[in-house]
C-alpha cells in the first residue's frame, strides 16, 4: 500500500461520495456543492496523474467559473427543494435498470480489452506546460481557434437569451 495508492483511494472515495451526494440531495444547491467536491477530487486525481496544468484549469475554470455560475443561477431562480412528481413512468425502475446496463456494458468493455489499459501508469517525467502549449498552438491550433469562437458565440447567445424582455 503505497502512498499514491492511498491518496488515490481517498480521492476516489471523495469523488464517488460527492457524486452520490449529488444524486440523493433534495435541494439543488446542495447538489451543486457536492459537484464542487467532485471537481476538487478530480483535480487531485489529475495531479496524481501528473497533469498539473489540467488540474489547475479544472479548479479555476470548472470549479471557479462554471460551478459559480451554477450557484448564481440557482440563487437567482430561487430554486427550492425538488418537488416529488412522478409523471414519467419509464424513468422509475426501468431507468434504473438501464443505467446499470449501460454502466455494465462500459465496464465490461473495459475489463475485456487487454491492450494498453493494463500498463502501469508512470509518474513523473510528464510533460511540462511548455510542451502542452506547444501542442495546443501548433498541432491543435484549429480546434483552439474554433473553441475560442465557440465561447464567443456562447457568451453572445447567453446574453441575448437571458435578457429581460423590454417592458
Amino acid at each position, binding site marked *: 500500500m503505497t502512498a499514491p495508492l492511498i491518496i488515490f483511494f481517498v480521492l476516489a472515495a471523495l469523488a464517488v461520495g460527492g457524486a452520490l451526494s449529488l444524486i440523493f440531495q433534495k435541494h439543488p444547491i446542495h447538489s451543486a456543492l457536492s459537484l464542487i467536491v467532485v471537481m476538487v477530487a478530480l483535480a487531485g486525481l489529475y495531479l496524481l496523474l501528473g497533469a498539473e496544468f*489540467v488540474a489547475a484549469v479544472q479548479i479555476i475554470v470548472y470549479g471557479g467559473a462554471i460551478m459559480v455560475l451554477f450557484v448564481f443561477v440557482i440563487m437567482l431562480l430561487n430554486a427550492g427543494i425538488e418537488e416529488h412528481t412522478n409523471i414519467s413512468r419509464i424513468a422509475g425502475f426501468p431507468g434504473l435498470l438501464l443505467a*446499470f446496463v449501460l454502466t455494465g456494458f462500459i465496464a465490461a468493455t473495459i475489463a475485456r480489452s487487454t491492450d494498453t489499459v493494463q500498463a502501469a501508469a508512470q509518474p513523473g517525467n510528464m510533460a511540462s506546460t511548455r510542451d502542452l502549449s506547444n501542442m495546443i498552438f501548433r498541432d491543435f491550433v484549429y480546434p483552439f481557434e474554433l*473553441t475560442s469562437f465557440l465561447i464567443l458565440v456562447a457568451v453572445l447567445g447567453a446574453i441575448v437569451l437571458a435578457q429581460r424582455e423590454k417592458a
Partner: protein
Amino acid sequence: MIPTNYYIVLSAILFGLGVLAFIFKRNIISIFMSIELMLNAVNLAFVAFSQAMHKLDGQVFVLFVIVVAAAEAAVGLAIIILTARNRQSLNVERVDLLKL
C-alpha cells in the same frame, strides 16, 4: 504504480452515477449538473489514458472539453432561466407542452 485500470473504473463509476442522476433528478439544474459530472468522468479517462500512453493528446482534449463544457453551461443556464420564467417551475416534468 497505480494501474490505469483503476482510473478507468473510477471514470466508469462516475459516469454511471451521472447517468443515474440524469434519470432520477427532477430539477432542471440538477440534471444539468449531472451532465457536467458525466463530462468530468470522461475527462478523467482521457487524462488517465494520456498518461498511460505518454502522449499529450489526452490532456489537450481535456482542455477542449472543459472549454466546451463552459460554453454549454453558459448557454444552457440561460435557457434554463428562460424556461423557469416561462413555466414558473424548475421541475422538468412541468415542461410538457409537447404532451398530447
